[in-house]
């Protein structure tokens, strides 16, 4: 693991996974997770090695072993874009080498927006657990703060965010609320500025957090959808179907 300094000085943790000699894929984990939990624990390090890909796992700011600044200004989408820029600049790859990006949930939203705004960076995308709308819209901050303090029980979409924010001991729930409100200042709208590169969208067929992923296919010029059988939003990450689908797609577009 190494750290890379982003434009605002925030140190971003970068984990090298898989086969260092293979085509490179940037890995962007989901909200409240980390490279370790979303990818390594779910078996992606072994799977990347076996498939012959180099995985570059970055812990998103506020997550994992990256620095966790406070205040929602630190979590504007523009800051996350700068983090991706800094991590990509730090790679010792050939100037014309192809780079893929694999995301999950919030990491998929970031990858989608980044690729839309920077069409030259990624040559293909595999995005797991991506809903067509922004799940952070409609989160009640007062309710979330009160629920984190144990003074009331959160309901609706706020309950899900509070649950995720408190699920892992290494996370800072207050910071994760800043993440929620920072990134959703500009709500995710997949029809606006979609990525033009080949894109594979995969969600569990029991994923009630991303049950409308397929509708994004018609919004982007080169997108397709493949379901992950029998899986929901939290347990799709280990699926062999997800891994196999991702590697087949990257093999076709990164080699």
């Amino acid at each position, binding site marked *: 693991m190494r750290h890379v300094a982003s434009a605002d000085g925030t140190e971003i943790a970068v984990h090298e996974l898989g086969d260092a000699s293979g085509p490179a894929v940037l890995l962007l984990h989901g909200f409240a997770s980390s490279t*370790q939990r979303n990818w390594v624990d*779910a078996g992606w*390090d*072994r799977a990347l090695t076996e498939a012959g890909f180099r995985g570059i796992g970055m812990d998103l700011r506020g997550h994992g072993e990256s620095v966790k600044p406070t205040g929602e200004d630190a979590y504007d989408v523009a800051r996350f874009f700068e983090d991706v820029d800094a991590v990509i600049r730090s790679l010792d790859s050939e100037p014309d080498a192809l780079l893929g990006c694999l995301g999950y949930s919030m990491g998929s939203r970031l990858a989608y927006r980044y690729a839309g705004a920077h069409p030259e960076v990624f040559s293909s995308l595999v995005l797991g657990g991506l809903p067509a709308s922004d799940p952070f819209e409609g989160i009640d901050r007062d309710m979330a703060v009160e629920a984190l303090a144990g003074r009331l029980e959160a309901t609706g979409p706020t309950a899900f965010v509070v649950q995720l924010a408190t699920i*892992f001991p290494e996370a800072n729930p207050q910071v994760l609320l800043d993440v929620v409100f920072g990134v959703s200042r500009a709500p995710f709208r997949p029809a606006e500025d979609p990525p033009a590169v080949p894109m594979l969208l995969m969600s569990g067929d029991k994923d009630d957090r991303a049950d409308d992923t397929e509708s994004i296919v018609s919004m982007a010029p080169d997108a397709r959808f493949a379901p992950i059988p029998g899986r929901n939003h939290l*347990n799709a990450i*280990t699926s*062999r179907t997800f891994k196999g689908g991702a590697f087949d797609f990257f093999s076709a577009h990164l080699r």
Partner: protein
Amino acid sequence: MAERSFPLPDLGEGLIDATILEWLVEPGQWVERNTPIVEVETTKSAIELPSPIAGTVKTLHGEDGDTVNVGDPLITFEVSDDEAGIVGTVPQEQKKERRVRLSKKN
């Protein structure tokens, strides 16, 4: 030939059990060490567990969807008698700080 059983490892964070999402191996199958053998789900996350040894799968203790308690048998292998005598094989890859793996049942 001898048998070696491995329990569901401690998954940390006070978790007492996990649900088998999907077995990736079947009885009679030869697996190399570190081959993924099962996906399990806890109340927090989904995890893939690798094989702690090379051997032939003898018994899977539970079916997809079953809940297994931490410390209860998860999988039994048939191994050569030489292998069975080795205590506490040290994993060779150490680059990850935190790695959930099966340990030998005493």
